[in-house]
């Protein structure tokens, strides 16, 4: 067989290895990029979630001063600057830890996140420029009495809509690095060259506008120490809790108040004067302190002119509910939010 040497396939493996490694490395790079992209993408949703629910702790109104939606400012549909700025500052580095402050660009191995923008806008129940048909407690349809109590708040149904976007781009990769495996940031981003990613929904026209997590804010509940005071029996206001009396009085007036002064006119016309005026709005709100701090007088009011007569002005021990409210309050060791007092 001498002279019939066959040529050994030398070097082929190297070529195959080189080509294979090239493809392998590319796939690995893409895999890493995808993982990084996914991490940053969900961070946007986390940011929006933070922006939404951090606001539930805000003092939204002051019933004493009769100011509502204090935290928002601006018109419905406008940006809420004093919300967007701090949240954006906190999350601009894609890290929600306030103890960590980094640059506004997060550069990973093959992915760069930048331009994280928090866009929370004031959202009205009837749309407010963010689309119509939002949830709405229809105070107007319920009547002027319903509107009277909460004044301006009753017509706004305040809420907010939060969207967060950022540019998530390839890094350390050629601009025309296409794999034709179906992936390109543009696919996620939509149709434009701007690889935007959104906390809510997908971009349209390179923008995340139009979508956002929408939520109502301000339960209109009296909150804090300044709005929790008792209202001793009075027809001239309530020093410890002025908003309560004022709002209840507004409701009373809108309902027609005393419906006239015929009683007074009757006395004046027949006797010559009237010993009473039926028009004032009398109110008493007593809590567990009662009128004198005595636990036996919890929730009860005492008439100034007859010291032996006390009545519960917050439901407690009247005949129909005595078997319900009093035991619920007296024997229960749980607070009414569910935890132990």
């Amino acid at each position: 067989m001498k002279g019939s040497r066959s040529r050994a396939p030398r070097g082929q493996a190297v070529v195959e290895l080189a080509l294979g490694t090239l493809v392998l490395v590319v796939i690995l790079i893409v895999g890493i990029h995808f993982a990084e992209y996914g991490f940053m993408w969900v961070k946007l949703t986390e940011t929006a979630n933070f922006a939404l629910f951090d606001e539930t702790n805000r003092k939204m109104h002051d019933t004493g001063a009769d100011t509502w939606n204090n935290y928002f400012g601006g018109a419905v549909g406008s940006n809420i600057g004093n919300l967007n700025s701090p949240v954006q500052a906190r999350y601009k580095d894609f890290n929600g830890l306030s103890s960590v402050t980094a640059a506004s660009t997060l550069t990973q191995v093959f992915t760069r996140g930048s331009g994280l923008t928090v866009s929370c806008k004031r959202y009205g129940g009837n749309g407010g420029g963010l689309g119509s048909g939002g949830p709405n407690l229809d105070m107007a349809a319920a009547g002027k009495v319903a509107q009277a109590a909460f004044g301006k708040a009753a017509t706004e149904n305040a809420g907010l809509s939060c969207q967060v976007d950022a540019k998530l781009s390839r890094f350390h990769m050629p601009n025309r690095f296409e794999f034709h495996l179906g992936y390109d940031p543009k696919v996620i981003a939509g149709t434009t060259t701007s690889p935007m990613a959104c906390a809510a929904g997908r971009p349209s026209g390179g923008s995340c506008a139009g979508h956002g997590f929408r939520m109502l804010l301000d339960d209109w509940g009296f909150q804090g120490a300044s709005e929790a005071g008792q209202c001793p029996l009075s027809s001239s206001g309530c020093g410890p809790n002025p908003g309560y009396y004022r709002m209840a009085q507004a409701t009373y007036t809108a309902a027609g108040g005393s419906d006239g002064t015929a009683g007074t006119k009757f006395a004046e016309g027949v006797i010559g004067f009237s010993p009473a005026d039926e028009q004032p709005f009398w109110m008493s709100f007593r809590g567990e302190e009662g009128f004198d701090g005595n636990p036996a007088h919890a929730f009860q009011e005492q008439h100034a002119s007859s010291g032996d007569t006390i009545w519960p002005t917050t439901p407690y021990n009247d005949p129909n509910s005595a078997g319900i409210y009093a035991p619920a309050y007296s024997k229960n060791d749980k607070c009414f939010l569910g935890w132990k007092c």
Partner: protein
Amino acid sequence: MRPARGQTMVLFCLMLLVLALTVMVTLGIASRVHDRMEAQVAADAAAYSEAVLTARTFNAIALINRAQVGQMVAMAAVQSLISWTGAGYGNFVQLQTVDIPTAQAGGMCTAELTALQTALAAAQATADANFQKLDEAAGDQVRSLQGSASGLRKVQLNLLASLVSELAQSATGAVPNICPACTTHQGPLLPGVSPKNMVAKLAKGANPQLDTPPKNGDWKSVMEVESAVTLTDSSPTSDSVYATMGSIGDPFVNSRSAGSLGFSTGVKFPGFTGGSSGGGAGFGQNWPGAQKLSGAGSYAAWAHDDAGSFKFTLTCPGGSVPIVSTATAGYVYSSEEQLTDDAHVYSGSDNKPAEKRHTLGACVVCHGIWPFFLDYALSSSGSADPLGRAINDHDNLYGQPVLYAVVQRDYSKIKDDPWNLRFDFHFTSEGAEFDNGGRRAGSKVKKGESNAAFSPYTYQVALSAGLAYYHRHDHAKEPPNFFNPFWRATLIPPEIDSSNDVDLGNGGDAVRALKQAGHAQHAAALVELEKHGYAVTELSP
């Protein structure tokens, strides 16, 4: 023999293919995780919004109850004025017949006495001329106040209807019935529900792919709100009556004492004292003139003035002459229109019977004159509430409504992302299937077909729960009620008021909400998680 060349290349290529698919899965998983977070945030925002809207409604209801109490206080004031004026008018009448002791005056006060009698006669004439029409007008005012106060209940119901219509709408757009006394909620509430409720509105705002389940309708939220409300129409409560009695602040109305607010300050007859020897106003059957009410069985608005006399000392050059009228009492009693026991008792005569002049409106649930209002869930035994939710039921969070939001993404209806890998395979001989595609290709949910017929991966489901709760700052032990505006909103673990069901391994309200939404497989998965301690049924501060 040919060498086995190229095998490595084939294996390598297959390996690259698998690797490439794995890379696709990386993005696919990231996409699903993002989708899941997006759905959960949308569900949380919707549940919180439900709680906000419910708290707003309850706060408005509370203020309206306070306004109603104020109007009933005003009614008591008008009744007092009617009674007092009637009693005083009676004194006038009596003075006309008083035997003025001219002999005692020795004839020295004749001129003064004559002048007094003339003045009294003139006052009597004026009073006579005014009495009938003014008394009738005052009676009208009392009846008008009852109407206004009753109208407030309509405002409360309007608010409740607005809330319920946001929580769920029927297929026809009609607001579901508000029916706390119904023995079953599903019947009237679920003729079919369109995805137009607020959860759907808010979820679609985040991403049009999100929606509420077609069978959901948030019936559970509506039921929770219903259960927190007692319509006093059929279950009268005295909370409002007692709050009213405690809010009567004018001493004249509350309990006028003898002489303290008699005629001593009267402008027509300076110097007169006396008049009513005491009186007051109130509601119900038990009052000083109870004999009038025996057998009537009616709750009424009344006011009374005890017998008192006009007293006057006539001073003249010849001496002093004490003048005292015969003691007269008076009261007014106004009951429902159907009864004719209404009365205005004084010394005089009416040209219109008191049962016409001083009656109140017709009762719907007789007997009674108290305006309807919305009260909090009051049931110690559960008899008044088909769900047994009550203020003293810790396991149900004292009846405070837990609002559920179920948001879903139906992957069979949305365009696939290019990196999604769709494959499925059987992995048990019984036919259990893994469906990574999240759907069966080309399949649609047919009418009447349960979601459960599809792979659980077809639907991405997020569940959240909000709570409207009563909390007065620094007084967290105070019971929830509809008389004070301390209703707040928060998110809450979905099984917070289902400890018994969770302990038994049956799944609580969250599981029922998922089942009702048609996601039986998700519900079953949640039950299994709860059996291993996943559910939170108790809060810690």
